[in-house]
């Protein structure tokens, strides 16, 4: 029951015994209890979740654009059907997450507006272009792979609606990664030109995929509090390392080379060492200066504008049906 009206508690209640409630709240979190929409929660917890879940929702929605770019040009009917299903899943994931955000007392209209005005961020990975068919393979394999790494711990997030949405998302996401790997596998077993295409896609998507885990732990603004609230379970750097460790052997299987000369197995750590991420690039893309930021937002804006008459017509039709029903 995710009705918004009931989510809001009067402010006075918080002022009266805010600390006692805070202690009780943290105790519930520490006991691994889930927080549900109508439960009392600190403003910071609510705000953090609204920011994080809505960013996540926006990412799913904007994430449809780079892949949608290849639906009409997928090499076979099988590939086209798979890509259509995947992009439709992303829309679904966006909607589960918007619903979860709305349980925190923010409306869908506000969320859409925050995306379209650029006030809300989305994952900067989607500001890179998809130049060849191999990019669809690389996105499924690397981008969805990184997303899964991020999302699996979120299934245990302390906020019930977010955790439940993530369970659904994760269940559906694993086919996304496999279909991407399959594309890469087929290309890597193909002609020289196809192998070059696969390598080129890996070269362009590897570093942005590593950036998806967010700033390094030392620079991450929100991490410590989010960990205490059990919104986050692992740090950005831990997850990034895990992703590198599982992905490098997959690249070796494909016979592709990671675009990182510092990449090396470190026996004593039991992990791969890897090169320094270009954080300058990360922050530039985040600020709106990536290769496709303007294009992505323009596409969302025009989809929203072009759909306005449909929304209006649907409401008019619903009202007409209601009137007829009442008259009968």
């Amino acid at each position, binding site marked *: 029951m995710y009705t918004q009206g009931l989510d809001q508690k009067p402010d006075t209640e918080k002022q009266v015994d805010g600390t006692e409630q805070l202690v009780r709240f943290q105790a519930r979190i520490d006991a691994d209890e889930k927080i549900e929409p109508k439960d009392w929660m600190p403003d910071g917890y609510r705000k953090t979740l609204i920011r994080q879940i809505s960013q996540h929702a926006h990412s799913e929605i904007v994430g449809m654009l780079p892949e949608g770019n290849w639906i009409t040009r997928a090499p076979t009917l099988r590939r086209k059907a798979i890509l259509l299903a995947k992009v439709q899943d992303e829309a*679904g994931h966006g909607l589960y997450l918007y619903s979860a955000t709305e349980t925190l007392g923010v*409306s869908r209209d506000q969320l859409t507006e925050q995306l379209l005005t650029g006030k809300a961020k989305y994952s900067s990975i989607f500001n890179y272009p998809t130049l060849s068919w191999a990019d669809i393979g690389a996105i499924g394999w690397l981008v969805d792979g990184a997303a899964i790494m991020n999302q699996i711990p979120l299934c245990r997030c302390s906020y019930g609606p977010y955790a439940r949405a993530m369970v659904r998302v994760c269940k559906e996401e694993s086919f996304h990664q496999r279909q991407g790997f399959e594309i890469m596998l087929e290309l890597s077993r193909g002609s020289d030109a196809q192998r070059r295409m696969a390598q080129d896609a890996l070269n362009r998507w590897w570093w942005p995929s590593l950036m998806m885990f967010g700033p390094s732990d030392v620079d991450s603004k929100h991490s410590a509090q989010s960990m205490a609230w059990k919104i986050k379970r692992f740090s950005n750097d831990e997850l990034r390392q895990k992703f590198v460790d599982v992905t490098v052997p997959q690249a070796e299987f494909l016979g592709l080379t990671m675009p990182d000369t510092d990449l090396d197995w470190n026996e004593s750590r039991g992990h791969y060492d890897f090169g320094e991420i270009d954080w300058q690039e990360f922050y530039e893309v985040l600020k709106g200066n990536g290769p496709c930021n303007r294009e992505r937002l323009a596409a969302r804006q025009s989809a929203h504008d072009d759909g306005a008459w449909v929304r209006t017509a649907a409401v008019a039709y619903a009202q007409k049906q209601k009137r007829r029903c009442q008259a009968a």
Partner: protein
Amino acid sequence: MKKEDWPLFEIFIRSRSGLSHRHVGSLHAADASMALDHARDLYTRRGEGVSLWAVESRNIAASDPAESSALFEPAEDKIYRHPTFYEVPEGVENL
């Protein structure tokens, strides 16, 4: 006209006959029949069910979590409502 005019619906799915409908999530739609259409696309892309319910969220009355102890605690000390409360002597069967 703003999207806000599309009310929120709660969606329930019966995964197969013999089981009750279970809440799976919510969505916005202009009316109930559109809610069912959207629910089909949103919540049953992988054969999750054989029947859908859409209920407008504002029509659901919900208990207040702040009152939960007053509501549910009285049941906690009535352990004699459970069969395990009663001692069954050795040798007595079919009880």
